[in-house]
């Protein structure tokens, strides 16, 4: 398999996961804001931080209100990380590698891209937006399902999945970094009665709520959520689950995989060993930041081992 295509598929996996994640973030935040009293509104600004575009957003002079943040995240032309751009990249990367996948996957991706171009090209009414994003999540999952159901689990498949899990782990850590810091501030302030609603929304933005409830039957609480999303070994969006998946997939790959394996197992160790009791505020933020750095190193190691040299 060509190194260039391995890279394309890896990025396709990342972008498709990212598209799904952005859609879910927006929808969950919309619902959350409906549930909270005006004074406690979670607002929209955190979404620019989670997606890593806060600086760009502010530099443009935008106001952190719903309309502007959502527009920025969905389709702003200056935002290379917008949902629209993400769908374009997901398609472009797949386009060059389409001959490695079942044809239906390309057709579905292409249809999804066209839908995105159509809906995100203009302004999207709030009502319509919820439906569109909901459908988009389903469309992304449909592609994941097609791959699972009709694609040989060959190298092409491995690279797509590595991309997906790496992106997912990264997104989970970003959500925890921003939301965790906002909800578990440094000082030991009294937790507000709406805390558990907010933690529920953190879970929901990772579709983790239902699985969390089955796993932990107590009232939703900050540190339990943190532990679940970091260390649960069965839930497919927990960071540890993603890291195990990446490790397994890297084992399948040919040639020299030592570097990539080393960084991934190093990450797993850190996630296992870090003390979660009472973790909050700045140290929590730093931990997540560190995880993101190491995920970036994992990407670097994968890139050096299998992608074309720049």
């Amino acid at each position, binding site marked *: *398999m*060509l190194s*260039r295509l391995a890279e394309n598929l890896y990025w396709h996996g990342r972008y498709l996961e990212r598209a799904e994640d952005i859609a879910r973030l927006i929808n969950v935040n919309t619902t959350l804001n409906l549930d909270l009293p005006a004074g406690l509104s979670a607002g929209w600004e955190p979404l620019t931080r989670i997606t890593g575009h806060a600086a760009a957003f502010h530099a443009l002079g935008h106001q952190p209100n719903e309309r502007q943040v959502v527009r920025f995240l969905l389709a702003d032309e200056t935002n290379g990380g917008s949902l629209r751009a993400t769908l374009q990249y997901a398609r472009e990367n797949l*386009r*060059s590698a*389409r*001959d490695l996948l079942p*044809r239906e996957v390309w057709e579905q991706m292409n*249809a999804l891209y066209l839908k995105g171009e159509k809906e995100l090209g203009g302004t999207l009414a709030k009502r319509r937006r919820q439906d569109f994003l909901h459908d988009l999540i389903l469309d992304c999952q449909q592609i994941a399902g097609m791959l699972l159901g009709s694609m040989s689990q060959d190298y092409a498949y491995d690279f797509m999945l590595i991309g997906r899990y790496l992106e997912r782990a990264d997104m989970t850590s970003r959500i925890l970094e921003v939301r965790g810091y906002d909800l578990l501030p440094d000082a030991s302030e009294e937790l507000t009665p709406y805390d558990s609603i907010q933690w529920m929304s953190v879970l929901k933005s990772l579709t983790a709520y239902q699985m969390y409830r089955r796993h932990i039957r107590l009232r939703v609480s900050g540190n339990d959520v943190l532990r679940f999303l970091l260390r649960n070994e069965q839930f497919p969006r927990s960071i540890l689950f993603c890291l195990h998946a990446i490790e397994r997939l890297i084992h399948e790959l040919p040639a020299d995989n030592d570097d990539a394996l080393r960084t991934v197992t190093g990450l797993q160790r850190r996630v296992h060993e870090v003390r979660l009791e009472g973790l909050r505020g700045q140290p929590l933020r730093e931990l997540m930041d560190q995880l993101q750095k190491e995920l970036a190193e994992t990407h670097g190691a994968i890139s050096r081992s299998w992608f*074309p040299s720049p």
Partner: protein
Amino acid sequence: MDMKNYKSEGFYDELIGDGGRPRAAARAAWKYLKSLDADEISERKSACELAAMVAGITFRVYFEDTSVDRAMPFDLIPRVISLKEWRQTEAGLQQRVRALNLFIDDLYNDQKIIRDGVFPGELLADSANFRDACRGVRPPLGIWAHICGSDLVRDGDGTLYVLEDNLRIPSGVSYMLENRQVMKRVFPELFEDSGIQPVDEYPSQLYDTLASLSPRPAEYPTVVVLTPGMYNSAYFEHAYLAQQMGVELVEGRDLIVDENDEVFMRSISGMEPVDVIYRRVDDAFLDPEVFRADSMLGVPGLMRAWRAGKVAIANAPGAGVADDKVVYAWVPEIIAYYLGEEPLIPNVPTWKCGHPEDLSYVLAHLDELVVKPANESGGYGMLIGPRSTKKERQEFKRLIKADPRNYIAQPTLALSTCPTFVHSGVAPRHIDLRPFILSGQHTHVTTGGLTRVAMKAGSLVVNSSQGGGSKDTWIVDTERS
């Protein structure tokens, strides 16, 4: 659908003959289409547009500084040819390509045809497509143009002519294959017991042709398709053919030529040897060591590898020398010289502006003729006399006089028409046909080919880059159905 009033005044119509009656091969299709009501038609139309969009059947159009993906317009009404007629056309195409390959091989080696005074040597001297770097090369099987796309047109009296040969990197075959897929999805009823010949053998024939060129005796040679990349207008086709053949689609940056002149591709398991390259990159960009030094699309050292016989390239570099529009005018002589045969499919009568007497005729009759530059494709840079303005003719006069050898002229053909869905119903539109001829260990001709259609009323320009569309092409065995 009301088609009683369909009439193609003054032209040969491919489906409807004298007295408004469908031709034998088209009878079943016409009867069926007539039975559909307007709702049914529009339902099928949307189904097929959707199928084409979803499949990503697009080509890229460049306009000023931007480019966009556009779906190629597809018309639901098929173009139908009887199997009996097609058998003759097929033979004519094989004859033509055989002669052209002998011609190319001769030009790069002994140049007997020039020494025998049949083909003028000075034409070669200023041909833009003659590559010095190819002199003395003997490619496998002596074949240079492994994949040829020849454009056929039918004149008012029903005669089929070859309008031009494309021996460099002809495209369009993927649309032929996709159009059939779409038609089968949208009109399954029509394909039952209809005697329509299948087209889908092409990818395996292409693979066999390419594999037969391998320099390494191996059961499964490594064949790759070399594309300029996804911003190329025909990228869809490159990806499609690679997928259909089950081979890698590579770009220049994926390949490397080592110091032993061997070609490898960069894979996740390291360097893998490559035997045959089906290249869809123009000669000029193929190897920056030999041709354009600024090419980012090519592979440094590829010509070395090819000349050393370490890798086969299809079409061979330099094959384009024979599809120059000026060379075209000599094809009847070329066929006679190498094969001792009369052309089975005639050339369109052609004036060579490089000849003084032809030149003065052309300059005096610009308003009747079609003038084409030798080295442009895609319908760019043409003058269509009867539709031109005085200013355009003046401009062409100047261009031709400045470089007469670069121009040929042909009469304006009364291109045949085919019923086509238009906004107001069904109307005649002009069409041509591009069959593809494969030459390797064996020769294959596509069953029919790609029918291109000028979507604008009266227009003769069928090129997709200029708004042309396409149709499914049916070769129908009337004796069977």
